[in-house]
């Protein structure tokens, strides 16, 4: 298993390097310039040139890249053009909000998706199961921002059950934090929950039709015991993988939900940085997302191996 992890990490190196070069060049190819953006529309060329010097954008691209890479290796991500704060501090500041959202959404997916998936698998002909299947399909087909806005209008503006947006750490004000988390987590979790239900149902019904479960039935075990003791353990495997991959997405892909709910997460940070052409933030964040993605995939594979001893990982 160690050799597997080692091999995967080795594979990650070219991916990380490639993506750092791609992002570096890509963001500079995009029309627009942080100096122009910061100097404002009336700026004279002199003023823009002065700012480019301040930002060290007047140096040749290879020099810029190597300087950045050299500092990156030492753990220095540079300073943001717009806010003049260290990029590392900006990212660190945004991570808690993203983690709150990701964990909250995972909980929604597990708590809602898991049991409903089991219901659908165990009693596929129940009306409830059919209703869940239909809701599922609708959830998968609804644009995230659309759902977010509708929830916002209904629960925050009309009914005023929860505040419309904002972020408070759960360690500071647990109740307020949860109130604020409800809508974004539901919005973000809708499609994820649907995916979990589908995987749960598919994987459970597959297991339930397998030979060893038939044997268990034949032995006269109660169905609830079969489901909880035998089926769930095996059927949970693919769901774990899905959850791990979803968690990876949640750490980077919640841009739209963050925009709707004013959530100060890393997706928003990256989106704003792309808008402001704050190159160093974009470079750092993209590298972060790629690293998270790789890590999550390795972890998913490891979970698989740990939960199912039949699987052996080979480099």
């Amino acid at each position, binding site marked *: 298993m160690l050799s597997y992890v080692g091999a995967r990490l080795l*594979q990650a190196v*070219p*991916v990380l390097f*490639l*993506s750092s070069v*791609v992002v570096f060049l*890509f*963001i500079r*190819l*995009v*029309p*627009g310039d942080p100096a122009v953006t910061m100097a404002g529309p009336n700026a004279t060329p002199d003023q823009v040139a002065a700012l480019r010097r301040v930002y060290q954008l007047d140096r040749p691209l290879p020099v810029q890249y190597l300087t950045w890479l050299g500092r990156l290796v030492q753990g220095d991500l540079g300073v943001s053009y717009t806010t003049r704060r260290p990029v590392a501090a900006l990212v660190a500041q945004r991570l808690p909000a993203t983690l709150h959202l990701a964990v909250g959404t995972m909980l929604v997916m597990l708590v809602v998706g898991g049991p409903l998936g089991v219901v659908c698998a165990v009693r596929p002909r129940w009306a409830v199961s059919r209703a869940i299947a239909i809701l599922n*399909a*609708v959830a*998968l*087909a*609804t*644009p*995230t*921002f*659309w759902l977010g*806005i509708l929830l916002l*209008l209904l629960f925050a503006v009309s009914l005023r059950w929860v505040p419309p947006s904002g972020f408070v750490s759960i360690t500071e004000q647990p109740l307020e934090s949860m109130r604020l988390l409800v809508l974004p987590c539901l919005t973000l979790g809708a*499609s*994820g929950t649907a*995916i979990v239900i589908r995987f749960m149902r598919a994987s459970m019904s*597959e297991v339930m039709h397998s030979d060893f479960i038939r044997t268990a039935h034949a032995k006269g075990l109660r169905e609830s015991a079969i489901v909880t003791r035998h089926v769930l353990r095996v059927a949970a495997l693919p769901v774990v*993988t*899905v959850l791990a*991959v*979803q968690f990876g*997405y949640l750490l*980077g*892909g919640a*841009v*739209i939900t963050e*925009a709707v709910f004013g959530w100060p997460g890393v*997706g928003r940070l*990256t*989106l704003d940085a*792309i808008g402001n052409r704050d190159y160093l933030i974009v470079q750092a964040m*993209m590298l972060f*997302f*790629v690293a998270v*993605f*790789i890590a999550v995939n390795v972890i998913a594979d490891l979970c698989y191996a740990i939960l199912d001893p039949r699987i052996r990982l080979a480099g």
Partner: protein
Amino acid sequence: MARPEPEAVGARRIAVFRHPAARITHAVLRDPGGRFGLVLVVTLIGLALSAARIAPFDPFTISADEPLSAPSRDHVFGTDELGRDVLSRTLFGARISLSVAVGSAGAALLMAVPLGLLAGYLGGPVDMVISRLLDTIFAFPAVLLGIGVVALLGTGVANVVVAVAIISVPTLGRLTRVSVLSQRNEEYVQAARALGASGTRVVTRHILQNVVPQLLVQTALVMADAVLLEAGFSFLGLGSRPPTPSWGTMLDSGRNFLSQAPWLGIFPGLAVTSTILGLNALGDALRAALSPRRE
């Protein structure tokens, strides 16, 4: 905006049937979900194609007299902030959304299938390079990647197509590669090789044929994703150019009027949802039809 999971189909071995097309169609039609999806998708295509004939108004005509009027007998879906008929715009919007769906799926297939075939069939360093490339693209968050592409190329339907295509390449590419890998050592491939068939011939005539069904499933899902992504990009202000009535841009401008004129957002939103419902249902039915468990 979750991406479909490639592994769900990719790793499974597909039995070869004599008339796969006929068998699949039959299976899809037997499945209620499949029927539903097929009817929905065919209806949408029909509406899109005949939009010019059935739309009650010109979707572009601005009317200062009746902006933001509620649904009525004249304007069944109401009018937008420029007094344009929302029903007509939604019908014409189907063209844009379906073009984005078809265009981006097509472009993605054109890029992904050759890459996947090469990687899977040749293996070794080629596979290594292509796989790492696909991994790299796949590792970027989809929405941010798309935003980058649209920021680079500028707004407009064509560029949204490019962005969605690039996002979808890794999924399709990996799927192709995995399918090829599973086929490469099949007896029929070995046999063809033994009979002296060239590599290209083996790939195009034999392997590709057996990869197609799974690509079909995935393509339906990519198309559904494309419709969603187009709406998402438009929401972020990166969608089609006005006055082109895409559902995404209609949703985007409609949300400014949600409390005064909810019909501006509701109808294009329903259109998006039903399109994706249809495509997803069709994709699921296809997947089920292709699943070996059925036999």
